[in-house]
């Protein structure tokens, strides 16, 4: 009875039905992708699907192809074979800056902060995708450019406050601790307003408190509807926040499932987790 009611209701409102269909479809779909560098296969026939609002962890040993996979999604590396789709749009023929404007942002493993800018300016660059002032209009400082600069500054301060770095806004990035630099990288990526956030080893080099803070932030982003794809070697910490875990080894996907399924997967234990780490 209840099911019939909903069916009748959505049939009467095709707009809503289409919206619901879109929400139920995977936000990211990777189909059978491969890439090789100088004959060495880095990613081999990997397929995966990411639902909107999920936190997905991709784990695996060094050289498993995790970072390469992220760079293929953001277009920073050319795809050899296969297809990548984001919100029903094929990505693998689009330039990286266009991919960013579609709603995908990456935080790099080494963060790559701009050392020639202050902390707040780093975050302001993150706002580039949703602003539009050009050479002439900025040079002439037209009224709408001033208004846009104001909203960029406001958004950047907002993201810095979110990660707790508002007091460091005018400092040089090099004056920040490693953990703060990780947070700044995250704030900069969030300033772009991503729908899909790609985090490359966000916990690398952090102490326990900093890891906890990053985890809380990621969970907060999930509540805001942001889909998060995390590449990480520290399996323990991602197992606690991920909805699903994908394991890569030598560029191939060897397992996919919930954290508990992965922790009890014999192949994963044998090749990656080891008996000591399983269940952690």
């Amino acid at each position, binding site marked *: 009875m209840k099911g019939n009611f909903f069916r009748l209701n959505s049939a009467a409102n095709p707009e809503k039905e289409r919206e619901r269909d879109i929400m139920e479809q995977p936000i990211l779909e990777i189909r059978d992708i491969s890439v090789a560098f100088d004959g060495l296969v880095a990613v081999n026939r990997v397929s995966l699907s990411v639902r909107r609002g999920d936190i997905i962890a991709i784990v695996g040993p060094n050289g498993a192809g995790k970072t390469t996979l992220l760079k293929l999604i953001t277009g920073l590396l050319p795809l050899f074979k296969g297809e990548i789709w984001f919100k029903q749009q094929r990505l693998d023929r689009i330039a990286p800056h266009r991919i960013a404007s579609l709603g995908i942002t990456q935080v790099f493993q080494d963060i790559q902060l*701009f*050392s020639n800018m202050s902390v707040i*300016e780093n975050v302001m660059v993150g706002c580039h995708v949703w602003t539009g002032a050009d050479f002439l209009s900025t040079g002439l400082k037209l009224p709408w450019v001033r208004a846009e600069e104001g909203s960029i500054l406001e958004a950047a301060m907002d993201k810095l406050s979110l990660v707790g770095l508002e007091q460091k806004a005018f400092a040089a990035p090099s004056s920040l601790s490693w953990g703060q630099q990780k947070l700044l990288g995250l704030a*900069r990526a969030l300033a772009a307003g991503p729908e899909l956030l790609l985090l490359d080893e966000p916990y690398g080099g952090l102490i326990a408190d900093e890891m906890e803070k990053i985890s809380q932030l990621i969970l907060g982003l999930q509540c805001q509807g942001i889909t998060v794809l995390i590449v990480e070697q520290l399996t323990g910490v991602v197992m606690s926040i991920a909805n699903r875990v994908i394991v890569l080894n030598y560029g191939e996907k060897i397992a996919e499932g919930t954290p508990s399924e992965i922790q009890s997967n014999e192949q994963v234990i044998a090749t990656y987790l080891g008996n000591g780490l399983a269940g952690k």
Partner: protein
Amino acid sequence: MSKILLSGHLQYFGVALFAIVLLILPLLAGPYPIAVLVDIGFYSIVTMGLIILMGFAGQISLGQAVFFGLGAYVSGILTTQYHLSPWLALVLAAIATGGIAAIIGRAMLRLRELIVAGVTLALNLVFYYLVTSLVDLTGGASGMTNIPRLSLDGFIPEYTLLNYYLVWIIAFLLLIFSLNLVNSRVGRALRSMNQLAGGSEETAQALGVNIMKYKVQVFALSAIYASIAGSIYAYYIGCIEPDTFGVQLSVRVVIMAIIGGMTSPWGAFLGAGSIVGLTELLREFMPVLIAGPTGAYELIAYGIILVMALLFLPQGLISICHRLVPQGGH
């Protein structure tokens, strides 16, 4: 937020003070210093464009003399052969030079920075051979003469003084344009892709910056600055020849940018002022110190002073100002 406001106010205060100094200076100086200041104005405009290109976007150019020359020649041709107004010719020359630079930039800027530097260096030679070959249009190796002067009839009758105000008003307007540009979305995008000074093309792209578009646009912008200076130079001198726009000028402008400092458009005035001033000082005082021809000694002293300046102020003269004036980081 307050730091940004303070920085903005200091910037405007600096610009206002600069305008007052420029207005008063001719009242205190004789004809010769005014002529030197006109030269500094030309160099400042070209150097400012180069600072935005090299200091902010991280793209090396050793070919700014080509765009300076293009501005001069296109203006010269349009005024002498097509009898256009010098003001209209200046605008058309700037548009044409910007267009040519955009075409060259699109082909060249995909390459690595050092290769780009090499290509721009080669542009000087291409331009020289082109100008000397197109004799009917450019006058060939002997150059173009009878280029009409710019005039503002009834306002400033004295010719050098007129050019002083003309050059410096344009330099001043371009300074404001440049300051607005570098402290904006565009300026941040340029700095984000500047691999020579802490930026990263990869990260910039991942944040939505279309690096190829920005590289081409900033290259064209720097060429437009040089073209404007070239046009006024042609009107000021009245005759131009290809040797004026050679590799030496390109290298001189790069030295000015380095000495002045590439982290601010203000560096252009410091660089151009110090290099032109130094040259004039050596020319003036070397004969007092050494008997006979002093040309070689002037060059040696010039070289030593430049090397010392680079050793002790690697960030350029602007770094002294940065130490004196608090930076808002924006």
